[in-house]
């Protein structure tokens, strides 16, 4: 497809209807993201129910708007009340909240907004540039590579988000893969783990599980806590773009970190912003200012989590593997609307990547204005009692899940997933690998067996192709690294050196 044709296709999906939908998505995203307890992932899952009757492209444009708005919106509550609206903005509290407490809340919001814009635009640029390259590469992949990429994604996501013990991230991911495998097998029509229930023959629906897993624990947690929040007062300080551009190097480095983390399957914005914050603090000339209202720290955190949006969409569009939990839910929405991401997307919808780029750019423009306009009303909204907000969220959880297929089982699944989410939270098991596992379950399963079938049951197919071999080595190194084998070897060498001397 030539440049002109691509531009025609892009302009077709930039009419008033799309612009209105993107604006609505950003607006909803900013509110969802800003309200502690409502995450971007959950917002996308809930909104997918409403978009069921929309055309595929318009629904995706709306959800992309919500993605951009949600990640940015989280910083509003992080700065104003010291509670991150989404996990992605937890690092923004470190310097955003102290700035607000020092009477510079508006300044902090403006800085974080500008950093968000820089980050989002940087991520979008990488999306436009890298997606076609990765798609080109992915077209050469066989089932063996897709299986290994899926498995590697689940394992690395588990390792990077595991927190307490890496094994917890892995088991969460593998558990997700098992959930993703429930239903009628694509290759043989055998029914797996359906307990004979016809409602499970089509598999466990992803959206109700996500709504329950993220929504119900937040509702329970918020209602368990009697405390209401203290909101910072807004000042009238003016901040100019050149004040931020003083930190251009921090912004660039954070943008790169955000995109890099975004491309890694299932890791997401929170890891990106913490990594970037850590790197910025380590290399700063004034590390002592971090955590006390450092503008540099705020720029690092906000640029990275927003550039991660573009980064997370790169593997989603080119490989069909999401780079973050919100992107994973978006994959579910893509499939519901008949858009199958992956290398074949460039044949089915050749202009899709550029359409997505244009939607994200429009969303960034709306985010810039809405976030500033919403700063004042958000002060009031953030004071809404949990006792009012959370029952309303529960109703949305139920309706959002029910509206997909009009089945009672989806409501039951929301509840079961909610209990599971509570257990995971209590046991410090990360959610991201589970989400990725559920999404990648069918991909890992079918590609594993397709590869074995192609090789006549010979496992060497996973080692003899160059990309497969690299992936296998990466998986082995990842496992050994997480089990502390390299640390043991290092300490053994250190001990043996003085002995030899």
């Amino acid at each position, binding site marked *: 497809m030539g440049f002109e044709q691509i531009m025609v296709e892009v302009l077709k999906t930039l009419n008033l209807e799309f612009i209105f939908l993107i604006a609505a998505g950003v607006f909803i995203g900013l509110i969802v993201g800003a309200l502690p307890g409502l995450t971007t992932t959950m917002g996308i899952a809930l909104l997918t129910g409403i978009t069921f009757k929309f055309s595929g492209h318009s629904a995706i444009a709306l959800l992309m708007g919500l993605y951009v708005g949600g990640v940015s919106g989280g910083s509003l509550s992080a700065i104003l009340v010291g509670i991150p609206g989404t996990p992605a903005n937890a690092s923004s509290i470190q310097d955003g909240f102290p700035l607000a407490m020092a009477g510079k809340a508006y300044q902090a919001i403006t800085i974080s907004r500008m950093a968000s814009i820089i980050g989002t635009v940087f991520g979008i640029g990488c999306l436009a540039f890298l997606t076609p390259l990765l798609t080109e590469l992915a077209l050469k992949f066989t089932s063996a590579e897709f299986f290994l990429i899926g498995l590697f994604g689940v394992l690395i996501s588990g390792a990077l988000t595991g927190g307490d013990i890496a094994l917890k991230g892995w088991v969460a991911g593998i558990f997700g893969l098992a959930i993703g495998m429930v239903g009628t097998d694509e290759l043989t029509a055998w029914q797996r783990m359906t307990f004979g229930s016809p409602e499970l023959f089509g598999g466990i629906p992803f959206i109700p599980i996500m709504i329950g897993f993220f929504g119900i624990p937040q509702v329970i947690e918020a209602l*368990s806590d009697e405390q209401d929040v203290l909101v910072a007062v807004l000042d009238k300080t003016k901040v100019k773009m050149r004040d931020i551009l003083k930190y251009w190097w921090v912004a660039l480095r954070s943008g790169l970190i955000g995109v890099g983390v975004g491309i890694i399957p299932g890791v997401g914005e929170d890891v990106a912003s913490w990594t970037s914050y850590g790197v910025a603090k380590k290399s700063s000339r004034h590390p002592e200012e971090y955590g006390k209202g450092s503008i540099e720290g705020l720029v690092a955190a906000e640029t990275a989590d927003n550039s991660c949006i573009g980064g997370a969409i790169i593997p989603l569009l080119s490989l069909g593997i999401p780079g973050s939990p919100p992107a994973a839910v978006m994959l579910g929405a893509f499939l519901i609307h008949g858009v199958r991401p992956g290398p074949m997307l460039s044949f089915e919808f050749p202009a899709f990547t550029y359409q997505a780029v244009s939607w994200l750019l429009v969303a960034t423009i709306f985010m810039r204005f809405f976030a500033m306009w919403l700063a004042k009303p958000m002060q009031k909204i953030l004071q809404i009692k949990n006792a009012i907000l959370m029952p309303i969220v529960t109703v949305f959880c139920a309706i959002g899940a029910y509206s997909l297929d009009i089945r009672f089982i989806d409501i039951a699944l929301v509840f079961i997933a909610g209990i599971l989410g509570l257990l995971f939270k209590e046991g410090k098991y990360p959610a991201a690998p589970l989400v990725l596992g559920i999404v990648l379950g069918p991909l890992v399963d079918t590609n594993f067996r397709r590869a074995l079938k192609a090789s006549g049951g010979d496992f060497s197919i996973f080692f003899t192709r160059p990309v497969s071999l690299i992936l296998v080595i990466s998986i082995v190194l990842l496992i050994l690294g997480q089990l502390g084998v390299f640390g043991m070897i290092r300490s053994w060498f250190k001990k043996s050196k003085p002995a030899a001397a």
Partner: protein
Amino acid sequence: MDESKVRLRALDLFMGLGFLAVGAFVVYDGFLAFYATQMATVERSSNPGVTSIFIGGLMGLLGLVIAAIGLLGSLHPLRIARQAVSETLQSKAFYRGAIALAGIAVYFFVFWDRIPYAISTFLFLAGMMTIFKAGAWWKIGIISGGTVAVVWYVFGVLAMIPLP
């Protein structure tokens, strides 16, 4: 090791055993597929049981390791669990959480599909807001009624979703 970590390890033991049990079930389901008569004509390498056994086995193994870490980290998991449960049962937050969960369960499993949407949702919202002291009764009534109307309009009218 501090007390919260010891408690987390005790929980790890039980959750690890849970993952082991789920993994064992997935492996069992894989073997069912592997030896099913309907699958006799399917090549072994394409049998769905292959992935089930692989994934289930891996989950079981990881569950076992987590359980072992939990056992070693907590040393007396049953005693710690008993203590944690009795402390939790005394906390106000637990009761608030339990009431919230019970309210949601009633809305989902008793009201949904049995009582028309507008009535069930109004009852749920007003009930929860009253229990958790959201404000004066008339405020609760207005907010609950308003929410029911907005949700009905957005989902029932605009998105044309047949609400119960």
